[in-house]
């Protein structure tokens, strides 16, 4: 039971940390100054969520590991984030599509998790819900403008949606951990938010004159530690400081 809660919390923490790291790669490279700050803001929201979740996971585990050790000293196969969040930034459209898919899921997810029997997860969810609402608004408005923009921006936005779509199936995966925690009133059953998620994406894509792909074949593996080729490179950059200077603190 305790280890289920640890695994579940750690997966949520990994999702947030890895997406935060990816978004942070835009810092100093975004298309405009305004967007540079905007993307960094979203990144920091995710890193803040990750810190709370890692700290709680460490507490649940009870083995003395803190947020830094969980984030910076685990190996590639020990990370349980979904493959979507680790996908490379690509062009701006790919970054926006990744955020849209994820935030459209996380907004109803956090809202439901506020009703969790686990009070800490419920409290983290209450804070994260407001952040996710802005992330969805930000990525949704960009999707609409790029999709309903020039021929070039429209083609790139549609390509990004088609490219990342197969990574959305993992958001809805349910294994034994999730199943047991759902039965216990702690976790969210992702199936209960599929309709809202899909309706959100359809509304945005309709306005953006873009087409959502059919459900089709989906990628899988992140939750059990099987990651994309680029993931090791992400970790080597993210974990460099703790590995080079063990125990280093701010």
């Amino acid at each position, binding site marked *: 039971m305790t280890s289920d809660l640890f695994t579940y919390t750690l997966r949520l923490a990994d999702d947030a940390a890895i997406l935060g790291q990816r978004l942070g790669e835009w810092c100093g490279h975004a298309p405009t*100054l*305004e967007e540079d700050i*905007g993307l960094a*803001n979203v990144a920091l929201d995710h890193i803040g969520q990750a810190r709370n979740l890692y700290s709680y996971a460490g507490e649940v585990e009870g083995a003395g590991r803190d947020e830094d050790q969980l984030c910076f000293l685990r190996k590639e196969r020990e990370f349980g984030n979904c493959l979507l969040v680790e996908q490379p930034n690509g062009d701006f459209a790919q970054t926006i599509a990744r955020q849209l898919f994820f935030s459209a899921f996380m907004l109803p997810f956090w809202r439901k998790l506020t009703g969790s029997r686990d009070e800490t997860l419920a409290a983290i969810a209450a804070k994260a819900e407001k952040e996710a609402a802005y992330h969805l608004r*930000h990525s949704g*408005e960009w999707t609409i*403008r790029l999709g309903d923009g020039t021929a070039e921006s429209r083609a790139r936005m549609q390509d990004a949606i088609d490219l990342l779509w197969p990574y959305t199936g993992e958001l809805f995966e349910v294994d034994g951990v999730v199943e047991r925690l759902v039965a216990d009133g702690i976790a969210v059953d992702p199936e209960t938010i599929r309709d809202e998620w899909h309706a959100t994406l359809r509304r945005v894509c309709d306005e953006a004159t873009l087409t959502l792909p059919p459900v089709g074949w989906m990628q899988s593996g992140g939750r059990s530690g099987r990651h994309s080729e680029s993931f090791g490179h992400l970790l080597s950059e993210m974990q460099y400081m703790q590995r080079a200077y063990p125990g280093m603190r701010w």
Partner: protein
Amino acid sequence: MTEKTTPLWEVFIRSRTGMAHRHCGSVHAADAEMALQAARDVYTRRGEGLSIWVVPSSEIIASDPAQKDELFEPTASKIYRHPTFYEIPEEVGNM
């Protein structure tokens, strides 16, 4: 991004303590909604704001600096317009 596709917007923020929106800077954005988002991201990161206005910079009508004298100079000699010009009777107390 060119000036034509992302024009300039002036940003006004109403702070937690202040009553009125105050001008705090400008952003480039494609339209009003994106200007609001950019203003939120750039100017309210440290809990500064409770409300944002964005106004197309091109819609602001400014006074001509060359007319500075005729517009503002005449008020310089009218010190009686300042509240400090008058003695306030003690009985009035704080105004």
